[in-house]
């Protein structure tokens, strides 16, 4: 069941599916502050398997902090964050690593390893997580991932020789090589021209269809959100201020929300 709301203490309706596998990420009363800056005040959110969720909001409203909490890069102050039915706030490092294996994270900058070639960048997560993988299997996975993002010819060059769009695509290929169940995209189209942005947005859609991944997309690019998201939430003052489909929010009664879509 889906609805649009501008209620500050919004909580997605419906029964708790986290136990039967439909809800893959569930956030309850998440709070995070940096000194006196209360970035996340009370975030309540559930994300279903196979869903593409876009998160909008002004700069500095804690969108990136929110997805960094999901992979344990930022520690929560308070609240529950349940991923695949496990509350990650109380997990030990080893258990957290197991959860991270199922999550892919596309960083805003691509976060490519400059000292490695494109091939080595893709092999890195494979070597770290699948220690005993044969060389041939690794090669075929690397080639397949690069073909998926249209970068097969760039295999032996370094990331510094790639354009911004190619770096994003390579970052995506590196993230997808482990076939994660949840994909986190941190501003995937920022700094790209409209044509390349559309290519990246289409890639996000393709990935979702091909691997049935659950995606959380942090973006300021409304076109990207429109193209990729089944559902959009807007964060304001550290809470989920609104939620709904693109069309719902585009016609929101709240002028502040509508402003994002104009």
């Amino acid at each position, binding site marked *: 069941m889906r609805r649009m709301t501008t209620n500050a203490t919004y909580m997605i309706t419906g029964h708790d599916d986290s136990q039967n596998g439909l809800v893959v990420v569930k956030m309850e009363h998440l709070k995070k502050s940096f000194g006196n800056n209360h970035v996340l005040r009370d975030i309540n959110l559930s994300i279903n398997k196979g869903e593409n969720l876009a998160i909008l909001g002004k700069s500095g409203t804690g969108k990136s902090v929110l997805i*960094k909490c999901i992979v344990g890069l930022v520690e929560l102050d308070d609240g529950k964050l349940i991923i695949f039915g496990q509350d990650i706030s109380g997990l030990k490092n080893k258990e957290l*690593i197991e959860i991270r294996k199922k*999550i892919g*994270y596309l*960083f805003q900058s691509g*976060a490519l390893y400059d*000292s490695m070639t494109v091939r080595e960048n893709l092999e*890195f997560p494979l070597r*770290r997580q699948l220690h005993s993988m044969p060389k041939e299997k690794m090669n075929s996975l690397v080639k397949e991932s690069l073909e998926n993002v249209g970068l097969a010819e760039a295999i032996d060059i370094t990331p510094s020789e790639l354009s911004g769009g190619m770096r994003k695509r390579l970052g995506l290929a590196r993230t997808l090589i482990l076939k994660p169940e949840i994909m986190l995209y941190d501003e995937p189209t920022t700094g790209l021209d409209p044509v390349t942005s559309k290519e990246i947005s289409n890639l996000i859609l393709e990935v979702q269809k091909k691997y049935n991944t659950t995606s959380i997309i942090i973006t300021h690019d409304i076109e990207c959100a429109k193209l990729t998201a089944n559902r959009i939430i807007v964060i304001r003052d550290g809470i989920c201020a609104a939620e709904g489909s693109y069309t719902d929010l585009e016609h929101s009664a709240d002028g502040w929300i509508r402003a994002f879509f104009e």
Partner: protein
Amino acid sequence: MQQSQNENREAEVPEIFSETTSDSAFKKFFLEVYSLTIFTLRFFKEVFKPPYEFNELMKQSFLTGYRSLSLIGITGFIIGLVLTIQSRPAMARFGAQSWLPAMVAVTIIREIGPVITALIFAGKVGSGIGAELASMNVTEQIDAMQVSSTNPFKYLVVTRVLSATLMLPLLVVFADAIGLFGSFAGVNLKGNVSFHLFFSQIFQSLVFKDVFPAFVKTFFFGFAIGLIGSYKGYNSYKGTEGVGKAANSAVVFSSLMVFIIDMIAVQITSLFQN
């Protein structure tokens, strides 16, 4: 009126002498020491814990050791040559010219070789580690590593500190040897001493207590350079400014640490010699 006077008095006190500034400088200094101590303890905790990053350690050893050979070699040769040329007139004044090879050898092996090599190593490798890790921090590469289920501290810091600790002593041995060849060239610029005579004089004059403490302290130099470079880079503030600051402060603090360790090493050595 009273408030206005207070404001004027405060304005007269230069900022560097104000209590708040010195307090915050002290606080900053102790926080830095505390943070570096925690970082060092974490290094010792991680270094013994499997999995071991042998491949990365080999790669870093190649980069820090092999790639520094030419620079260290040239510097060592020039030091040996210059030291010999500069010392010759003073030695000649006392009629002790024949002691020149022994004097230069002891000076190079005990002090000049390790310290100068460590300073060059701090400039090349320490700053490199600081800048590399800081830029990895800025571009979220360290976060990406963590997300890929890799312990970035073990992969980046432990390997770099270990490689610096192991490679500097080898580089110092190399620099000392090249320095002695430089000295041989210096002696032969204004004289004619055979290769055999020159080196037999050197080996006769050198004793265990000249070589061993000088070699041991280079491990500590290497450790300090690797650790401070890694600490500055790993904990750099976000932004490109942080990269420059990390590289700069890595060189400054590791060079300072080289002198401090050298001073302590000399004190300890002299205690045992007495």
